[in-house]
């Protein structure tokens, strides 16, 4: 009985310690991100890495999401003769929900993992200690450029995903389901409000922050060689994915909860 209680206590204390460490890390990371000096070269490198090189995977995700959405909603809505709503359903689902969440998850796999692996390897090979001895703050040099780039680049990626996703729906709608092109486009614009896109881009910025934060955090505290770096990579992706889903609900509730 005592051992059981001790185990529960230990797990709980471990959890609290983890939360505390993550909070301290987040505070440090944010404060170094917004205070000079900045490293323009590194920020630019991360912009390209996150923004440009993620375009293919995000674009493919978006186009097929839009296409399948048009197909599914058409076959579903035809049961109660509401096929005309396909364009509206596609544009609202993509901008509000699917583009940010799916792009976020794809980028979490791509960027979160590589950041955790890179920073984790730097940790276990003492490169992070070496930074400190060379009068360079590792938070400023490693963490800040990544978090800044992630937070700014994800909205950009999601905006592109919005466009490509809607275009995917348009292709299926017009060339497969036989909608009139002009009508489909008109229907797309008819019920779209700025808030739909803005809420999606807000989500994207938060997701970009979370992905890069979890990548850097797990890498920064990894230990124990190759196995430790592997665990850090897994944790970075899993924790980022779960946080994306949780924050997706919270932000949706904030915008449309009333």
């Amino acid at each position, binding site marked *: 009985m005592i051992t059981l209680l001790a185990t529960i206590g230990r797990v709980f204390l471990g959890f609290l310690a983890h939360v505390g460490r993550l909070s301290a890390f987040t505070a440090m990371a944010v404060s170094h991100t917004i205070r000079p000096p900045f490293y323009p070269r590194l920020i630019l490198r991360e912009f390209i890495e996150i923004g440009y090189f993620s375009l293919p995977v995000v674009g493919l995700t978006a186009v097929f999401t839009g296409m399948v959405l048009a197909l599914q909603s058409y076959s579903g809505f035809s049961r109660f003769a509401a096929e005309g709503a396909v364009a509206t359903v596609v544009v609202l689902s993509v901008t509000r929900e699917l583009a940010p969440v799916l792009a976020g998850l794809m980028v979490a796999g791509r960027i979160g993992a590589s950041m955790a692996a890179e920073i984790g390897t*730097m940790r276990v090979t*003492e*490169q992070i*200690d070496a930074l*400190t*001895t*060379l*009068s*360079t703050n590792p938070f400023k040099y490693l963490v800040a450029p990544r978090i800044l780039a992630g937070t700014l680049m994800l909205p950009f990626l999601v905006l592109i995903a919005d466009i490509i996703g809607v275009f995917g729906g348009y292709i299926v709608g017009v060339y497969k389901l036989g909608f009139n092109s002009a009508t489909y486009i008109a229907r797309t614009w008819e019920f779209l409000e700025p808030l739909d896109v803005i809420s999606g881009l807000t989500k994207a910025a938060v997701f970009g922050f979370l992905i890069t934060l979890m990548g850097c955090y797990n890498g920064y505290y990894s230990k124990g060689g190759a196995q430790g770096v592997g665990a850090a990579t897994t944790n970075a992706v899993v924790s980022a994915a779960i946080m994306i889903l949780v924050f997706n609900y919270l932000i949706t509730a904030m915008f449309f909860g009333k």
Partner: protein
Amino acid sequence: MTAVPKIELKGVHKAFGPKVVLDGIDLSVARGESVVVIGGSGTGKSVMLKSILGLLRPESGSIRIDGEEVVGMGAKDRDRIMKKFGMLFQGGALFDSLKVWENVAFGLIQGQRMERAKARDIAIEKLAQVGLAASTGDLFPSELSGGMQKRVSLARAIATNPEIIFFDEPTTGLDPIMADVINDLIVKCCKEVGATALSITHDMASARKISDRIAMLYKGKLIWVGPAKDIDHSGNEYVDQFIHGRAVGPITMELRA
């Protein structure tokens, strides 16, 4: 004359959970002196170096650099003190995303905000000092052999002309000849920049060559400190066992499954 020691440790304690690693370390290193700390694996040599560097924080005790207390120092003062240090890491710890010359010039470009072209010239010069051609500068660290990586790492450690250089097992993983080359370079470089050196190693050949004084760390305490030439007649059986590398003696390896 009682000059202020460059590095002074008094009663430094450091523990990780219940495991005491440093149990009251007292050591002082004079300006321009080279002290080598020897000791078996896992006796806390690296922890001692990292405590002085401020990468780890000791629970109690005092660490002074040029008479200035550094334990519990604020970030700003810490940055200022850090500029006095150079360090050669055990595995080299070269930044693999940067070219060799960028590695060497890192402290100049990032730490001192020097222009890249000027920093590059100094980097090439430092590479020449450790016996590497200028063309090496454009390679990446992964394209170099272990011995060359150590040389680059040494060039990086001396690039900012630090007042104090730490060497963490400088010869580990090198063949005996390359190890001797590195030892010679360490002696030469320290002399050229007039630096105070604190090294940790378990390579006795290296310790004899680069040190003025030797200290032996065992179970968190410095059990012997003396001039390098006295190491062979220290009268301390722990030291004797260590420098002759005997399995039998007062030091028993704690082998636990």
